[in-house]
């Protein structure tokens, strides 16, 4: 199906002729294939081209920043924040932190394009990107409070695509709890295409949490590539239930010894929501650990996808990699696809994977009902128990409670 796009580079302000040429080249490269479709192995369960055709009349780009500035703030815990509107940095507050330890700025698009080409969305991003941020934490600095990134999207974004790039660097021996918060309740359809580059240097810890404020008619694609150095840890907690479409494409490179990563995901998909989590964990060096636990509950006609790949390089002995996907399918019309992949070139490693899907155990429902609990509530309790397990390892009590409450609301359909 041919997409009705209307992408114009001349809508982007303040570009040099050199930049215009580069962006034009990228737009041409995008036009050669259009949006990814199921013929591409990486998109075979999420035919983005078809999904957009079915839900958008046309898609345009824009560089217009609306005047809306009032957005709901999280009041469950004290935090620093960065506020983005349609991908552009509009405000920041690091008043809990020491001065000069954190650097935050607009992403500099004139800088090199530091992303490998994964698919046509990358070319589109290069052609149209206008926002995003660069965040850097100084050496030996551990943030006292978490940092919330408010991703606000205005109501005026109807049938518009937002493209932006982010860069996050944690220098040696630093720590950051990051909460990516999608803050939008617009009924309008829009698309967001984000490329994010994360560097976690020696002896550092980054916790990356993704959650949203409410149901949202946005179509999200985010590619994260990360470089994890010695003795460092990169943890991900992904709970973005309620987005119309979402694909998270996460690449984690464990590049130095004793680096660790984890991906925990809990999704309760409803109606015709569609979400995919795709991971590529590259064990490029010995003695690294990776852990993935992906849980999906599928209601209505929703679709969930997990493509998880573990790659172990020949020198990466003593690798410890684990991957588990569990899905509860509550409706005959819902679908879950899992594609676990292990590619191992070292011989002294511990790698395991598992994938199960099934329905709710009705004996458990009977047990709860026999205690006077109404059937609907019994299902909610079981689903909540199933999903909230992924938060077990999260040590920050206030954030954990915040996420647990979110999860409960997501299960109740917001």
């Amino acid at each position, binding site marked *: 199906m041919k997409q009705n796009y209307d992408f114009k580079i001349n809508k982007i302000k303040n570009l040099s002729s050199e930049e215009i040429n580069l962006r034009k080249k990228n737009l041409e490269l995008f036009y050669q294939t259009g949006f990814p479709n199921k013929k591409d192995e990486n998109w075979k369960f999420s035919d983005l081209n078809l999904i957009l055709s079915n839900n958008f009349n046309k898609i345009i780009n824009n560089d217009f920043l609306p005047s809306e500035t009032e957005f709901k703030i999280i009041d469950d815990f004290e935090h620093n924040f960065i506020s983005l509107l349609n991908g552009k940095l509009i405000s920041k507050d690091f008043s809990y932190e020491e001065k000069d330890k954190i650097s935050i700025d607009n992403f500099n698009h004139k800088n090199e394009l530091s992303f490998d080409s994964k698919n046509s969305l990358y070319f589109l991003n290069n052609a149209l990107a206008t926002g995003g941020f660069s965040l850097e934490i100084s050496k030996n600095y551990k943030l006292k409070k978490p940092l919330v990134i408010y991703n606000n999207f205005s109501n005026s974004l109807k049938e518009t695509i937002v493209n932006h790039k982010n860069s996050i660097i944690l220098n040696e021996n630093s720590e950051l709890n990051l909460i990516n918060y999608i803050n939008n309740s617009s009924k309008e359809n829009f698309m967001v295409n984000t490329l994010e580059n994360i560097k976690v240097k020696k002896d550092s810890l980054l916790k990356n949490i993704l959650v949203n404020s409410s149901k949202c008619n946005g179509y999200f694609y985010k590619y994260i590539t990360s470089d994890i150095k010695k003795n460092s840890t990169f943890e991900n907690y992904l709970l973005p239930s309620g987005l119309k479409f979402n694909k998270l494409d996460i690449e984690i490179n464990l590049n130095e010894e004793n680096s660790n990563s984890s991906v925990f995901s809990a999704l309760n998909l409803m109606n015709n929501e569609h979400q995919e989590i795709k991971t590529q964990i590259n064990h490029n060096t010995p003695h690294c650990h990776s852990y993935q636990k992906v849980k999906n509950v599928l209601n209505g006609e929703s679709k969930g996808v997990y493509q998880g790949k573990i790659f172990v390089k020949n020198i990466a002995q003593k690798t410890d990699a684990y991957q588990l996907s569990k899905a509860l399918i509550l409706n005959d019309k819902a679908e879950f696809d899992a594609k676990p992949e292990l590619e191992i070139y070292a011989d002294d490693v511990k790698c395991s994977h598992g994938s199960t899907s099934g329905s709710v155990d*009705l004996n*458990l429902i009977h047990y*709860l009902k*026999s205690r*006077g609990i109404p059937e609907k509530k019994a299902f909610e309790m*079981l689903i909540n*128990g199933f999903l909230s397990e992924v938060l077990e390892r999260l040590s920050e009590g206030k954030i954990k409670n915040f996420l647990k409450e979110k999860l409960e609301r997501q299960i109740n359909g917001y």
Partner: protein
Amino acid sequence: MLNIKNLEATIDNKQILNGLNLDIKPGEVHAIMGPNGSGKSTLANVLSGKNGYEIKGVIKYNGESLSELSTEERAQKGIFLAFQYPLEIPGVNTNTFLRTSLNSIRKAQGEKELDTLTFLKLIKKKASELGIDEKFLSRQLNVGFSGGEKKKNEILQMKLLQPKLSILDETDSGLDIDALRIVADGVNSYKNKDNAFLIITHYQRLLDYIKPDYVHVLSNGKIIKTGDSDLGIQLEKTGYSNIV
């Protein structure tokens, strides 16, 4: 309180109960004994409203036809089944489960729901009466509990929910002597003139602690003999084969 007439129950084309009759009045303790496969657990499942059974006959609970009521409505109206094999529910906190259960029943009965603090006070008191460590209450429901702990947890639920009719399905199985005594004390201290018990068991030993008013022998889906507490003692000596 409970009147069962000519009850037949079939599951997967196999008829398990073949015309069972039973009357239970407030204040009474009834024991049902019988060999394996006689239909004891089926009776418990049918009374609790478990799906999958094809039912014929009449079951009246306080004058109301039980077959019209869902499992949760039965519980809300005061029927409680202590499970033979209490289920493990990962991710569901025991306290949360108990509070949701109690409040669902209170709500259905038109009573005010308990707030967290009031509930915690109440549950701690009830747990200590049964010698249950408070730590169990903050664990996932029955996950990693020993057999005895699970059974004690069932009795805790009974004492918390205060049912009118309590059905204990082989609550004694898997219990050591100390746990058996605690469970029996729990039942005895709850027993009064307004509530009734149906105790399903293989063995006499639980009945040494909880004295039944009636003992029924179930065989092939029917009650074939009814007597007083002496019948249980006799069965223990002679076995079922002399009767069945």
